[in-house]
């Protein structure tokens, strides 16, 4: 008997198809939900002082040419919220970064992600969309 006519083959194929459909639906659901997540706007007054501000998702180095870095450590995503001896320090595993986001000490080996922002010179405001 041709094995493609067997019950087992049918169940396997049907199961796989259903599984794939389920996976597709699962992915679609998550993807749609992700898209529907509202973007958060963070507005900060430009103070030109080089102040390092820590927000939940980003770190702002507030100077004339501001730098906005992701607060997620590139090693494992821990929130970086400490500025010590001129360096950003990850509290979980001890990675350090400079104020441009470059890794100085491991375990992290990649640069902190630089986030886009808009700078309104008139209102002296930095706006970041997270």
């Amino acid at each position, binding site marked *: 008997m041709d094995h493609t006519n067997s019950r087992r083959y049918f169940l396997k194929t049907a199961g796989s198809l259903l599984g794939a459909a389920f*996976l597709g639906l*699962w*992915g679609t659901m*998550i993807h749609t*939900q*992700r898209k529907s*997540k509202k973007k958060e706007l963070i507005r900060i007054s430009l*103070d*030109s*002082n*080089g*102040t*390092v501000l820590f927000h939940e998702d980003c770190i702002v180095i507030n*100077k*004339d040419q501001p730098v906005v870095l992701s607060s*997620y450590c590139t*090693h*494992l*995503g*821990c*929130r970086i*919220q*400490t*500025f*010590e*001896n001129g360096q950003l*320090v*990850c*509290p*979980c*595993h*001890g990675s350090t970064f400079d104020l441009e986001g470059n890794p100085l000490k*491991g*375990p*992290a*080996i990649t640069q902190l992600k630089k986030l886009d922002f808009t700078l309104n010179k008139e209102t002296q405001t930095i706006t970041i969309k997270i």
Partner: protein
Amino acid sequence: MELLKKIWPFSSFGQISLALLLICVVSGILLAVPYDVNDAYASISLMMLINPAAILFRNMHYWSANFFLVFSLIHIWDHFSAKAGIKLKSGIWLRLSIGVLIILLAMLTGFLLKADADSLQARRILNDLVGGIPFIGSLLSASLLGISDSLQVIYVHHIATFTLFIVIIIMEHHKTIWPGLKETIWVTAFVLVLSFLFVAPLHDNLNPVIKGPWYFVGLQEILHWLSTPQVSLLIVLLFILLIFLVPYGSPRNQFVTKRALLILTIIYLLLTLTGYFFRGPNWKFITPANSDYSHYIYNPFHSNGFAFTDYQETNRVNTSPEVFGRKEGCLACHQDVKGLSASHNPEALGCYSCHGGDPFTMNKNTAHKNMELIPGNLTTAERSCGTTACHPEIVSRINTGLMATLSGMISVDRYVFDEQDSPDELTTIHHLGNSAADEHLRNLCVRCHLGNQKTETGPVNESSRGGGCLACHLNYGDKSLTAYHQHKNNDQDTTYLSFHPSVDLQVTDEHCFGCHSRSGRISTNFEGWHETTLTAEETDGSSNYRIVEGYRVFRKQEADVHHTGGMECIDCHNSYELMGDGTLYPHEEQQTDIQCSDCHYSDKPNTLVLCEFDQESAIINSLRFSRADGKKYLSTAKRKRPLINTFIRNDSAFLITKNSKQTKYMKPPASVCSRGEAHNDLSCNSCHAAWAPSCIGCHNAYDDHEPGYDMLRNDFITGSWVEYVGEYQAHAPALGYRENGVVKTVIPVVPGMILTIDKHSYDHSYEDTVLFHRLYAPAVPHTTQTKGRSCTSCHNNPVALGYGQGELTYTANEQGGIWTFNPKYKNSPYDGLPEDAWTGFLQERSGKVSTRSDVRPFTLEEQKKILTIGACLTCHNESSEIMKESLFDYQKVLDSRKEQCILPFKK
């Protein structure tokens, strides 16, 4: 072993695990009532404050879950060791092996649900790790942790998905979920006792140490060393795989697998111990020798302060503000505390962030246990003022400042005791031993350092020494001071609890006074007071005298022009000079950044605009003054730091006093300062310091029976060094040279260390002679006057030249001119020089002459030059044209002198 089996009341470890699971499920269901998934951390803190039964259920939930994990693993191992082996179908065994992972996930989600600082970081890590799994990582992380910040999905998995899976595999394996009655009773009793004694951990959201749950701390340690963290997932999978593989293969293979599992487990346990007990903030290595060890390592484990609160207390907790995302018991009792500045508002910071204790209890004793009544001392500043959310930058460098190290003081003292070859070595008070010099320092000098603990409440006054951050930043207002005195007079008066002193930037001269009214006495000099050897009874009680600390008598002198102008110490000195800048300096002149010429500049000023400020200066500037974009500020020439209270307007420099906010015009140097080139090497102070205090001829001896005090240990002792002081004087300072390479600068100096030391009296092994030293010290007297010294006060003054007091006379006749000097004091038997001299009249001195290796008296040639002008000044008025001309071309004036002009030193 037989005996153990007899008294061991349980049939198997599996039964214990079942009992633990039952307790865990029941306590978890009950815990769901006070727990609020939408405000998780605050709801846990709330139950810890007002709901003792909920605390007990939480503790039971925590301990039963943890022991369920442990006993489940032991149960598996027990099966591995059983002679019969594991006789389960491979499918069931696979699901049981995966069950270990599910138990870990159930516990991990429980860890995440407390939503404290540890949990929030763990959630991000888990999201990153799972998200990194190829193809389906993103789906898995979203499905496991959710997409928003809400804990809803995690909560569902914790109470349903993982719990159900665990229950199903137990049913499949054991056919029943119910444990035996005996096991349940024993285990419940055990968990109850444990829950009563040890509280489930909760992070205070301030402690900088971030750690995962104990069973993942080993993994955290591994991750610290791994730049590719996804490897850690493989380690977990390997562990599960090894468990699964144990029953299969030949007996030898089984043995190897079991051994591999055992070795891996032991290694993991060692890593766990390392991570748990030897990792501090930022995962840095820490040992119990660190003074903050227990704070960093045991902090999440709060005391079990079971306290049943009444309606009023509950209400107070409910109406108290949330700080750092949680409720804090302190604020429920200490409501409406007034007096603190906006920066330290208790509604934002709470009490715990400064004072410690336990924020998660309403039991008064437990709440106050280990609390810091006086925070800010340097031993504890790292966990109060210096905590992550506050001032870690400053606290991490404050110990490098001279006010904390006392390097110069220690180094010079060891130098005069012949214990050190150079007075300029870097030293620190933390390495003070018990040598003669160090004991001398302990007995007489080292009370004045920032690290000296403030141990009593109360305002900073002229007797205050040290106190860490509070030494400068503590201010009592009228109400807090009145309340403080009321409490001092009557223990029962608790008004003081409602009126907190302020901790702010109002650093006044009174804060500096306690320490700086001693030694160089710059605080008293600045205010125009000179210390005498009079007793209080010997004064006439007039305003010409001031009694300090009840017994030290000061006589009125000229105050510094900056003081009479309304300025205070901090109007010149910046935060980096006062709190260290991260570099260790041997002496104060190296640490000091400000120079007279930074404000009183003659050519172009050094300036900065706001956007060029360093962060600290910018923040202080914004706190003290309103923003002023485009404004030009002066900066220091030495380290390019902004002088935040200065500005340039219309090419003139102005200063705003930091506390009183008065605007002052800052004059450029007078034309006389730069007239000609004759005085280019003079520092501003050498002319403008009107007077400096000096003391000569003190003797130091150790007395075994003298009641003394160890200023480092703050302890009374018997046996002390005693200083027998000589005479205190105030006059225009002597002058000398500081030579740094090719740069030579004339600076004021005072007889800092003309003394004898009976070292034998302390250390009898030392040869029976008395040490004698004649060292002058460079000084910045802080007695600045607008008008500089006259020409004669230097050129015709034996004190200025370093000869000491006396009569310096010039006689000229046909044979030539002769300078003679008749000293006021007798010659010392030790070196034949007058008691107060630095150098002999028309003699040279070198070697050990100063408290710095780069400071020296005038050489013979230099003395001759000065005295030659001095000879001219005996006839010519210093304002005369010829004297002014000599400033431009001295040689020309000499060459064109008249016959009756008789100069000294001509053969």
